[in-house]
């Protein structure tokens, strides 16, 4: 097998338009809740700006599902998780897995915002030999815990990671984000059953409940409702939250592990394409690439 690390990315920074990213890093320890929320809001705004430029430059991406999950990612990486760049070697660090791997650009940008990737590397997104392809690969980026892209893989892997933590008596928590359409995959229900029955209380499954999948509404494809009942019947402690409200999210994440001893399932109500006027809750934006005018419009909405 050719080792890809032997290959050098051929990126001409001139050829890849895009703004830079101001790296805010983690919410400073000791910050008040209000200060934390303000920090996260600003970080999310910057991540969205960089993300849309990346997608525009690459001519590829899944902007709708990226914008729906960014507030969750930013809250996890900059505040909730016990995981910072100098901790990668620490087995007891928290873990994050983006099961809906098609939102890779959002993850890459958040990782840069949190200091796990040099921001310049974002310009290589989708370029020949880049480590940043359309779905995150653990062999390409140290901070990526699992290679995802095919839906329904990340949650079983997260169950394994949480299981290892339980065996070791570790305090680490495992967070995993699944798409709502993704929950049509049976592998997730296998994993939920396993997590529920094995008391993996340090596992937190976050459902990016944006009500849309690739081609249509989830409800018009193969509906998930009553979703909370399904998750509860599979042994989860179910919490519902506004997935764009950083304060509400950080409160929810602080509640993991739940006192019940069950794994936590967070139904994060989001909008695909949030908060861009012409993208929000519009299935056309699953993987559409914005025109120059649309980018300008979106950036103005993200001032």
């Amino acid at each position, binding site marked *: *097998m*050719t080792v*890809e690390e032997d*290959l050098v990315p051929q990126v001409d920074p001139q050829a890849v338009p895009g703004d830079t990213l101001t790296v805010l890093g983690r919410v400073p320890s000791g910050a008040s809740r209000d200060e934390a929320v303000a920090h996260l809001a600003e970080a999310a705004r910057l991540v969205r700006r960089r993300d849309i430029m990346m997608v525009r430059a*690459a001519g*590829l991406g899944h902007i709708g599902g990226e914008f729906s999950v960014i507030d969750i990612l930013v809250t996890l990486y900059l505040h909730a998780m016990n995981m910072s760049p100098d901790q990668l070697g620490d087995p007891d660090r928290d873990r994050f897995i983006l099961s809906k*791997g098609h939102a890779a650009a959002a993850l890459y940008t958040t990782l840069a915002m949190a200091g796990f990737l040099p921001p310049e590397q974002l310009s290589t997104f*989708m*370029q*020949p*030999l*880049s*480590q*940043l*392809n*359309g*779905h995150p*690969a653990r062999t390409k980026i140290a901070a990526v815990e699992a*290679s*995802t*892209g*095919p*839906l*329904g893989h990340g949650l079983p892997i997260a169950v394994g990671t949480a299981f290892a933590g339980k065996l070791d008596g570790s305090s680490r928590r495992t967070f995993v984000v699944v798409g709502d*359409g*993704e929950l*049509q*995959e*049976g592998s997730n229900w296998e994993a939920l059953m396993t997590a529920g029955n094995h008391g993996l209380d340090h596992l937190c499954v976050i459902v990016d409940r944006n009500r849309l*999948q*690739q*081609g*249509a509404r*989830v409800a018009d*494809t*193969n509906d998930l409702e009553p979703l909370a009942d399904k998750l509860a019947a599979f042994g989860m402690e179910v919490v519902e939250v506004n997935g764009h409200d950083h304060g509400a999210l950080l409160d929810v994440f602080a509640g993991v592990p739940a006192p019940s001893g069950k794994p936590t399932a967070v139904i994060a109500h989001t909008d695909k394409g949030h908060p861009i006027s012409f993208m929000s809750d519009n299935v056309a934006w699953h993987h559409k690439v914005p025109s120059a005018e649309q980018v300008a419009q979106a950036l103005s909405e993200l001032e």
Partner: protein
Amino acid sequence: MSTATTPAERVLHDCRDAWVSTLVELAETDDRIVAVVNDSVGSSKLGPFAERFPERLVNVGIAEQDMVGVGAGLANGGKVPFVSAAACFLTARAMEQVKIDAAYSQHHMVLVGQSPGMAYGELGPTHHSIEDLAWLRTIPGLTVIVPADPTETAQAIRWAAAHDGPVFIRVARMGVPDVVPEGYEFAPGVALTLRDGSDVTVVATGTTVVRALDAAELLAADGISARVLSMPTIKPLDEAALLAAARETGGIVTVEEALTSGLGGAVAELLVTRHPAPMRFVGVSDTFAPTGSVSWLMDHFGISASGIATAARDVLGR
């Protein structure tokens, strides 16, 4: 036919257009035909079918095992299901259903692998379907078709609709020119000789056929006469054409947008037992692809006119 045109003049087609128009046409007169998808209406370009026959489109959502099983059940219920999904998920994710529900059960059902090979280039190896030919050609009773252009795609879909058995068809998304000649009729196990030649034979399939023709031009300029065979079915193979090529020319180069154990492996297994002859494989071998667009990757792996020509010279020791 493209052989007369230069690469720059070619009009390229997305074979999904031929797939869907053929399916709609067949469905107009055969109400047994249904489509089964995994939230892949758009990526399968099934819009026109969905509009014309909304009730005959079964969308199970993102659930490939269920998708193939439901297809088998629809066949049991007298339907002719076309199960259409990105090739990577249809094969790897539902492999046991393909083995058991389709092949072992000998159901009349058509598995349509969309955007196969490295069509999803930059999306990465999770979305590449380069194993499909190597994997599926070993499954008993399954016909494995890799059409080279829109005409052949349409004919393969028609053939499969009438064939009482399980079929897998790759439908290419990466642009291809017309390559089959006027009046061509697809038949499983029948290769198409697109160019005669006596020094070496290039056997290509699917998106690589046009590249093989271009390679033959390069070789001709070097005084090497290359025969070009288009192989639309990996299973069954056209054994007679391959054995003739092994006897009549000095070596065989296989070309595929796939792991080289697909077409390459199939031809190798035939030759060593029937007429050992030197071969070279053009395709991907023992590696996951790095990031890059499909056309960049094709060049990266030498699945290109010059890469094929190099392999042909190599097999001849020139």
